């Protein structure tokens, strides 16, 4: 199916290495403005490496990553972030030597149009109460995940890369994260989500790409999820 719009993010034949090991073998996909796109796949399929290669955190990479039409491959990660991409890592990356407030204010504003703090506290009411907390890592796992998402909303980045935001969290927190992602989509954010939990993903995603052995092997829209369920079970081994 052809789409006349230019994708916000276009990844083409992305290959990546960790030292000697070749992890990504030509990943291609795109993300349209305002979409929530989910990368599904087993552990080790290359989902996290894909996000990290887009962000430039994995620096040994070839191929093409175009954001708003601009080529980002080969640029260092600080410049990629300045182009308007923001990354929320799987391990959340909350800093122990920073207070909650310092963690929240750490990522610099890279573009105008980020969410004001008031709006962020509407989305994450519990964070406001924890602002005075002396150490970011004293928060609960769920609160740390909220903080890790909240801090990249201020920066004006329009594309959010979220790496397994539900991992290890209680169902009630997962629901809250789902509501947040839908609210962010309404705010106009574009989201590239990495998930193993496709039941969660199905509550937020517009489209899916399935990864295996460092390649995209399948893609379908949320409406086609039921039709692809059997295949998906095979790929994910669930």
């Amino acid at each position, binding site marked *: 199916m052809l789409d006349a719009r230019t994708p916000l993010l276009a990844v083409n034949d992305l290959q990546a290495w960790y030292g000697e090991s070749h992890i990504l073998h030509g990943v291609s996909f795109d993300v349209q403005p305002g979409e929530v796109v989910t990368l599904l796949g087993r552990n080790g399929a290359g989902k996290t490496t894909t996000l990290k290669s887009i*962000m430039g955190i994995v620096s040994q990479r070839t191929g093409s990553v175009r954001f708003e039409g601009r080529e980002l491959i080969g640029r*260092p*990660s*600080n*410049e990629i*972030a300045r182009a308007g991409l923001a990354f929320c890592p799987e391990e959340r990356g909350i800093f*122990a030597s920073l207070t909650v407030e*310092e963690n929240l204010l*750490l990522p610099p504003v890279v573009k105008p149009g980020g969410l004001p703090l008031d709006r962020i506290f509407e989305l994450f009411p519990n964070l406001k109460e924890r602002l005075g907390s002396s150490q970011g890592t004293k928060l609960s796992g769920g609160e740390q995940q909220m903080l890790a998402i909240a801090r*990249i909303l201020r920066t004006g980045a329009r594309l959010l890369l979220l790496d397994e935001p539900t991992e290890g969290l209680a169902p009630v927190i997962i629901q809250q994260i789902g509501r947040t992602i839908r609210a962010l989509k309404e705010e106009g954010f574009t989201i590239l989500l990495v998930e193993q939990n496709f039941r969660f993903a199905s509550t937020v995603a517009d489209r899916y790409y399935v990864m295996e052995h460092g390649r995209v092997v399948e893609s379908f829209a949320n409406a086609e999820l039921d039709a692809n369920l059997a295949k998906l079970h095979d790929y994910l081994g669930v």
Partner: protein
Amino acid sequence: MFEIFGIPSTALFGQLLIGLINGSFYALLSLGLAVIFGMLNIINFTHGAQYMLGAFAAFLLLQHTGLNYWAALIVAPILVGAVGVLIERAFLQWLYKLDHLYGLLLTFGLALIIEGVARNYYGSAGLAYTIPEALQGGQNLGFMFLPNYRAWVIAASLVVCLGTWFVIERTRLGANLRAATENPTLVRAFGINVPRMIMLTYGFGVALAAFAGVMAAPIYNVSPQMGSELIIVVFAVVVIGGMGSIMGAIVTGFGLGVVEGLTKVFFPEASNTVIFVIMAIVLLVRPAGLFGRRA
């Protein structure tokens, strides 16, 4: 004059003052080492030589350009810090991912080269640098005589140390530094130019050493080996305080200066070794140092 534990008060306070002076230099230098180690993961053995370069810069600026002490206090750290930035770009930036040993060997080699060059041109006798006019003389406090220059050194060192602590622990810039110390990759992926920050941090740590060197010039002679004599003790101070704690470096620096001074009064034979004895005990009881975090 009165006596405390059978010691004349002038002797006691005199040594206490010397202890605070030495402590000022210990604190400034170990603070720089701690800042550099935190960000670069490099044990900067060139630190003593950079302290010496600060003193030499002050001396040469006065000789050749007529820049006085106060100007040198600003200009010398900037010059020596800029040389530090060049060293970071040329050599250190390639070592961050390697074992500590490489950084240690490289910076130790640089220290030997810098000191050797200085000795070649200026000998080891030492050059005199006079106390600036505004700080000559002293105050009679009744129980002791306090030279103005020494009071200035203690006060200036305290202000610079606490100012550095404030910037690192209480400001946005400091939050960036602390975060980059913890997880440089992620901080860079937020859009912060971490390599530049690391470069400037090294320059700042080196500038602190040069600042200490300028302040030391009128007290000790300006000589090529002034840094290597001091740096051994400063490394002991860093080991006792623990790498990576800013306040720890400051408190340990001043504290050990005072302990050393008091030892000179009560048991002079041990005054040269007391810091190393404390280091041995701390290493046995708290290997990460008094204020250190476990790696």
